[in-house]
């Protein structure tokens, strides 16, 4: 299985377009949004400056891009062209393919998180304690597994031309509703109430509570756990269905 993971990594790192989108693009977006904000503007009700707040949002967005965009389309394509079938003729265990894909995504998502942090720290003078940097990196990296599972599920759900638009809708929906592009505090009240239950919102909130040196909200943890169970369960179910039909 390690050999497949290794090859998936090599391939992920070789794909310039994908690397650009998941590693560089979130930092560029961070600079566009937070670049003109001065270091003292606070985001309503958070006590965090806009750059500090947006740094977590964009790191989460970058990780989301890496784990969701790459995998769903790849899996759908490789299911269709028969590579998945060919792998079933090897000693690779059934879940090996999905694990390799997830590992491949995780390796791209880590630099995308770190690059956003580096840009925020150097360009916008975001200052945090050492433990906060570490905890943030860990939380955002591990939290991205929720969306990696979603990416796998989408790859097994949709096929052909359908997978890209579906992934796009889910990706933009999650990014906007979750407040990754602009704080949800700018939303109308009814939308704010809804956004609380969106997994990306809980995901970013996790990081923001670390920045505030607070314990994470129980609700965010529960939302993430429920969605993780939902996405992995869905992915496992779709995977088995696909295997039976060969």
């Amino acid at each position, binding site marked *: 299985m390690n050999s497949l993971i290794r*090859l998936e990594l090599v*391939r992920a790192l070789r794909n310039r377009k994908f690397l650009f989108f998941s590693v560089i693009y979130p930092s560029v977006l961070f600079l566009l949004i937070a670049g003109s904000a001065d270091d003292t503007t606070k985001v309503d009700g958070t006590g965090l400056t806009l750059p500090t707040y947006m740094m977590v949002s964009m790191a989460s967005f970058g990780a989301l891009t890496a784990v969701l965009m790459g995998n769903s389309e790849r899996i759908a394509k490789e299911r269709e062209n028969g*590579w998945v*079938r*060919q792998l*079933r*003729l*090897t*000693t690779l265990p059934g879940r090996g393919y999905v694990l390799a894909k997830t590992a491949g995504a995780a390796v791209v998502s880590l630099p995308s998180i770190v690059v956003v942090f580096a840009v925020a720290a150097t360009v916008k003078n975001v200052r945090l304690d050492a433990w906060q940097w570490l905890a943030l990196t860990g939380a955002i990296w591990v939290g991205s597994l929720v969306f990696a599972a979603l990416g796998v599920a989408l790859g097994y759900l949709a096929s052909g031309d359908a997978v890209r638009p579906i992934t796009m809708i889910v990706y933009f929906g999650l990014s906007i509703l979750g407040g990754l592009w602009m704080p949800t505090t700018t939303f109308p009240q009814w939308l704010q109430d809804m956004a609380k239950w969106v997994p990306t919102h809980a995901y970013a909130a996790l990081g923001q509570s670390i920045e505030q040196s607070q314990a994470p909200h129980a609700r965010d943890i529960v939302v993430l756990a429920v969605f993780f169970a939902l996405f992995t369960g869905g992915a496992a179910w779709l995977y088995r269905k696909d295997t039976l039909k060969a």
Partner: protein
Amino acid sequence: MTKTTGAPARQEVAVAFDRVSKTYGNVHAVDRLSLTLHPGETVALLGPNGAGKSTTLDLLLGLRQPDSGTVQVFGTGPREAIVAGRVGAMLQSGGLMDEVTVAELVTLACALHPRPHPVSDVLARAGVTPIADRKVNKLSGGQEQRVRFALATAGDSDLIVLDEPTTGMDVTARQAFWATMRDQADQGRTVLFATHYLEEADAIADRVLVLHRGRLLADGTAAEIKAKAGARRVSFDLEGAIDEPALRALPFLTALTVSGQTVRMQSTDADATVHALYGLGLYPRNLEVAGLGLEQAFVALTAAEEAKQS
């Protein structure tokens, strides 16, 4: 290169299908198919498009589950045989991982095999050493087939399964590929390949299974298949009333049609049949005896089956 398995493999059965059926909706893709393959055999699974060849191989490889019947590979289920590294396969619709090189992909296949061959050997035997550094998504159809063959032969497997391996190749590439396949058989491996080219079966296989509508029509050497189909075509005209039952009783006859005064038949021994025809006291006019090519033999076999069914 040493021989694949020692003496014990000789005794066991490589592949056993016992009344295996698989339907898609109301299509009987495989219909109560029973067959046994022995270690060391080179077997062609021959049949026209839609005969059920790919479905048969999918069942053999455990990619599909039979509706009824059992499939055994080296005495175990297909998946167990694959995990034990005893089977290497190349699918008709087997895609490749793109954006990696041929060498990287073959290295992966070797790493996933419990008894891998050295990567350079696998590349050389499949004839892909010159394109080892090319990206797999930049290959021609024939080159891609060779890469897929390399994946199927990455390790010391006892059975190699190939589904229409020469699809997308021109005549020279096809003949070169046959040598590659024979090389696997010469190492003592059991080779099972699906094809709809009779000359391919004739050129490589020492046993031919003819599949039609999911059923086994014939099982024998290419020569026997030809004989069974009626290797010679005999036609003549008769005057007066034609006694069909008497004609049907002629020796070595495999097919008979009477239209008007013209009789057409196929015989595995035309000389004996014609001799017996005179023996009946008949006087055939415009007698013609012609050889039947393998292609025609195959058409005859399948046509005979269709006639039986309707």
